[in-house]
């Protein structure tokens, strides 16, 4: 069981969602973050104040999956988020100690397996 964290361009978030959906990865959460990963800084000017902005808007996906689904999820994130330019983002895979589905109390693998409906 792993937690897959994907940090992607905001404009590619919909493509990622679509790729994940096709890969049948259904459970995820998503948040807007600002980060820096080596892309071009930009200069902004507000009247007399000039600033160099190193933080770019990103979308962070968090997806808890069972081990057989890790590679599928990574592939989907890459397929959806890649443009080939600096700033496409990163994927981190971290071990997941426990997971509980609140509604049923199911634990671990059952908890991260989508409900068949």
């Amino acid at each position, binding site marked *: 069981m792993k937690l897959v964290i994907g940090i992607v361009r905001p*404009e590619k978030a*919909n493509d990622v969602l679509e790729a994940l959906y096709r890969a049948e990865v259904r459970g995820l959460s998503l948040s807007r973050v600002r980060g820096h990963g080596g892309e*071009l*800084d*930009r*200069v902004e000017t507000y009247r007399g104040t*000039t*600033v160099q*902005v190193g933080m770019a808007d990103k979308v962070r996906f968090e997806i808890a999956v069972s081990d057989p689904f890790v590679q599928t999820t990574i592939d989907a994130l890459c397929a959806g988020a890649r443009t080939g330019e*600096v700033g496409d983002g990163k994927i981190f895979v971290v071990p997941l100690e426990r997971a509980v589905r609140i509604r049923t109390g199911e634990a671990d693998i059952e908890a991260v397996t989508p409900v068949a409906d």
Partner: protein
Amino acid sequence: MDLPILAAAKVDTGDTAWMLVATGLVLMMTPALGLFYAGLVRSKNTLNTFMMCVAAIAIATVTWALVGYSLAFDGTASLLGGLNNVALHDVGFTPREGTTIPQLVFFAFQATFCIITVALISGAVVERMRFGAFLVFAAIWSIAVYAVLAHWSFGGGWLTQQGTLDFAGGVPVEMASGFSALAAALVVGARNDYGRLALLPHNAVYVLLGAGLLWFGWFGFNGGSGFSTGNGSVLAFTNTLLTPACSLVMWFFLDLVRGRKVTAIGAATAIIVGCVLITPAGAFISPAWAMVLGAAGALPCYAVIVWRPRTRVDETLDVLAAHGIAGFTGILFIGLFAQFAWNGLADGLAYGNAEQLLDQAVAAAVAPAYAFVVTFVLLRVISALMPLRSTDREEALGMDVIHHGEEAYATGEGAVLVTPEAGMDEPVLVEP
């Protein structure tokens, strides 16, 4: 002394006072439109969208003062005015012929109309057109399309001469902007994400506030188009309350039928549609017919707003539906229900004068065609000289950062202060 020439040469203080206020009200409509448009786009394009309206104030005021006003209002030649008023030559404190207000006030009032019309077209090309290309377009369009149509229907040109009634700009403002917007959307092309992603309004409160301020300003727009405090202005002023209110009620009903909910952005749109519907007809139809116009005229506009997003034409903020179609409807409505008893000029078809409908139909056919064709050609020519669109990457990043170097909702997180001495005016690549 009862000589009409002497009577006409006198400035009326009451009329002038109202027209000074009305001019200010109409100028306010352009930033209000900026707010309305800014709320309808995605947050990364907020400032650019607003700035296109601000740019219209800058560009159109200058072109109007230099040549536009003269071409529209110098003389009553059938096709185009003269050049005697270029750069405000001979525009002074004496009354404009046919009015009781100084020509300077008349000039300023008409300038605000040119400004908002230029700003309206930006709604078709937001979120992708380059700011510089829009400035060039705005300058030429304000002369080649607006001044010409203003002459035809306001300045004593051939539409006026053949009997078309257009109180506050169904021809040069509403149909011109609406059909030019369609041409602009076709030439500039759709946004990359159009039809692929949901492109939603980022702030519905801006949209409602912008629409409300536009309505407020529209009392000056229609109420001032009689250039006096006379009966025509009073009628147009009151109709500007009645028609949009009826459009709102009709829009509520249509929203309920279609989606079982009354929408806020629909309501904001209905306000604009109602104001546009009454713009040409303001002083020509009775208050009761103005209410009918508001309700009935909303139908074709609603239909186009529902239909347009299903097409491949990314006429982004529906200028065609809200201004082109509504202006078209209002112009024709005059031909049907104008009433001599109310306007002292002409009856419409319903009151036994079928010829008026024909006069209106001529304007409804010619103005859209002229605006569409000239805008289409003009943008094609500009696109041969400079790119009209931002690159795909720039479009993805957003127009605000690309064209203005600012963000609407800057947080300051991760922003490093640059001192002027450091001379940091170029982006720097930070090693990964």
